[in-house]
């Protein structure tokens, strides 16, 4: 209060003296009660920042997020990360066991290296036997020129993160029936298996949000029809339907087309859960005043739903989307495993697992089962992240 206060006057009667003191200075509530900086930051933070803070506390979800980012890095750079390009075979090493990487040879550090595999055929049991030759360490090469590949099928390259030693082999996870490196195939398979889920969920998201949005916004007979559709689809077993639909995809189509058909099939049957969630949210939200305001201004339903209603629970949507991706990954794996989904030369985890279809594989060549670990890691990561997101979607508790 630097200047002299203006005289206080009564609002109605300027002659009457007023006993109330009204300070004419602008009032700043934040200055009145000074919060500690941390608390203040929390009060000022936006919704997504709060969600992020809450998610960050969920260690398992954050860890799963990191795993998923790593997996998608593999998706992006599979050709560079894999020591062997897709389709390369080593007919001298069929069903070779995993080679392990060592650092010390005879007590001396010589960097990461592998021992070459000596091959003998057990004539009694007709079994291929491999034994590491521990006298000849073969150092690995890094960022080296290896077998050529087409990066993303677009341009030629031959740079690999790690290459097999000169004249040697590098089978970190062993080889399969055709002498293909399992580790390389696993990385290439990651690309297919992890994108199946994304594309499939994109399809199911569009259908689910559209139908669920219409049902929730319009109500009435639209709602009744969509509800019945949801109930019917949910009461049917998914897998047999998936099987029947993918059996209808002609074998003669190109692998890429088959891939899109499979994702389309997965997406077509998976939407009811999402539609139901959207519907129940919209039923409540459509009564809000701002919706009426938007209607009066003349906004069309699609705009009101997409622009004003959906953003209200976008974090919930993200959470339920994350939780439905594992089902798609498992679905693709199951279909390919049964020979109804993707087929070689396309490489996905399910396609790789067809090799491990019999007991013989489990007993003799257990490394053929490694794609199963990949499936489990991916499915668990999506589940944990989805759980964390669902908890974080309501940050105002």
């Amino acid at each position, binding site marked *: 209060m630097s200047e002299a206060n203006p005289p206080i006057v009564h609002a109605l009667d300027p002659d009457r003296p007023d006993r109330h003191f009204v300070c004419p200075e602008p009032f700043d509530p934040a200055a009145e009660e000074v919060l500690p900086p941390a608390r203040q930051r929390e009060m000022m933070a936006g919704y997504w920042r709060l969600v992020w803070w809450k998610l960050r506390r969920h260690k398992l979800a954050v860890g799963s997020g990191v795993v998923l980012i790593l997996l998608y890095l593999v998706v992006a750079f599979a050709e560079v990360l894999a020591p062997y390009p897709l389709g390369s075979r080593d007919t001298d090493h069929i069903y070779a066991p995993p080679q392990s990487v060592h650092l010390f040879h005879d007590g001396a550090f010589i960097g990461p290296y592998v021992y070459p595999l000596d091959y003998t055929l057990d004539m009694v049991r007709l079994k291929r036997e491999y034994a590491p030759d521990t006298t000849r360490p073969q150092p690995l090469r890094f960022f080296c020129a290896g077998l050529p590949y087409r990066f993303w099928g677009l341009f030629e390259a031959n740079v690999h993160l790690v290459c097999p030693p000169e004249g040697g082999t590098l089978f970190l996870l062993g080889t399969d029936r055709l002498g293909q490196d399992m580790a390389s195939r696993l990385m290439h398979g990651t690309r297919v298996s992890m994108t199946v889920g994304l594309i499939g969920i994109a399809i199911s998201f569009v259908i689910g949000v559209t139908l669920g949005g219409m049902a929730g916004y319009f109500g009435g007979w639209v709602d009744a029809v969509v509800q019945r559709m949801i109930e019917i689809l949910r009461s049917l077993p998914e897998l047999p339907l998936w099987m029947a639909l993918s059996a209808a995809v002609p074998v003669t189509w190109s692998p890429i087309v088959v891939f899109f058909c499979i994702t389309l099939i997965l997406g077509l049957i998976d939407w009811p859960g999402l539609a139901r969630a959207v519907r129940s949210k919209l039923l409540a939200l459509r009564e809000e005043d701002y919706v009426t305001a938007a209607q009066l201004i003349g906004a069309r339903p699609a705009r009101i739903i997409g622009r004003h209603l959906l953003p209200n629970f976008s974090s919930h949507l993200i959470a339920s989307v994350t939780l439905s991706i594992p089902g798609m990954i498992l679905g693709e794996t199951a279909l390919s495993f049964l020979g*109804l989904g993707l087929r070689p030369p396309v490489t996905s985890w399910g396609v790789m697992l067809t090799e491990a279809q019999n007991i013989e594989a489990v007993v003799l060549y257990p490394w053929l089962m490694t794609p199963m670990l990949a499936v489990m890691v991916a499915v668990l990561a999506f589940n*944990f992240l989805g759980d964390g997101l669902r908890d974080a979607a309501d940050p105002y508790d």
Partner: protein
Amino acid sequence: MGPYLIRRLGLMVLTLTVTSVLVFVIIQLPPGDYLTTYIEELRAQGEMVPQERIDYMREQYGLDKTLVQQYFVWAGGLLVGDLGYSFEHDVPVEALIGDVFILTLVVNAATVLFVYIVAFPIGLYTATHRYSIGDYGLTFIGFLGLATPNFLLALILLYLANRWFGTSIGGLMDPSYLDAPWGVGKVLSVIEHLWVPVVVIGTAGTAAMIRRLRANLLDELNRPYVTTGRAKGLPPTRLLVKYPLRMALNPFVADIGNLLPQLVSGSVIVSAIMSLPTTGPLLLRALAAQDYYVAGAMLMFLALLTVVGQFVSDVLLAVLDPRIRLGGGLAK
């Protein structure tokens, strides 16, 4: 109860009708029909196929009619138990299925039982011993169960069963009983073989069920009436069993709606791997061979299994919980 039952029954009939249309469309989707393939095969073998014979077969199999007519012939047949004709095996579908439907029913029923028997005590334990080591351990195993593709679990368990108990690999009974008439020995053999598929199919469902029961029970345990009961000196077990458990059980029963389609899906793939004499392998082979009446019959049966199962569970639930009947009657 009456109106609810009628409404629910109507929904079931509607579901089955829509399903039959869906199934018919799906099995007709592959280009060409079995007859075209068959005739081409005969021609490739150098056999002369006169046009009259083709026309006769077309008419015989009803392939000369329009799709809509074919649908009604097929669906009408289903109603009276005529499942159509298997092109591949050249016999009516009924002759092909034998014990298949019954064994499918047995496997699925046993799995439902398994899920409830295992999930119930574990769910109870994890909810009452929240954040204990047991809770964390069981929750972790549950997550693993959710994430493992069940067909691979099947392979591993089969191997172990064979190694430890000498159970023959694959199938639902010892090979010596395959063509034998039903008797005590055969039933025992079925029971001995049943546990592997049941455990495999049920694992994912059990894991989901445990998580749901735990969440429901935890919600109830935090209610004020539990505190009141405890304050009044009710023994802990009695307090748990008499009130919160009852409340948490409703969703448990209702959950069969989610559980059944999942179990049936699982049983199809697991039985295809383990070559169980159930619908799975038959469906797979029929789909591969475009033997579409067999595929249609299998799909319809699986749908029937889940839909009827859900109907039964809904009626049970309505008996248990009057609020559901009322909710159904009040049209919005």
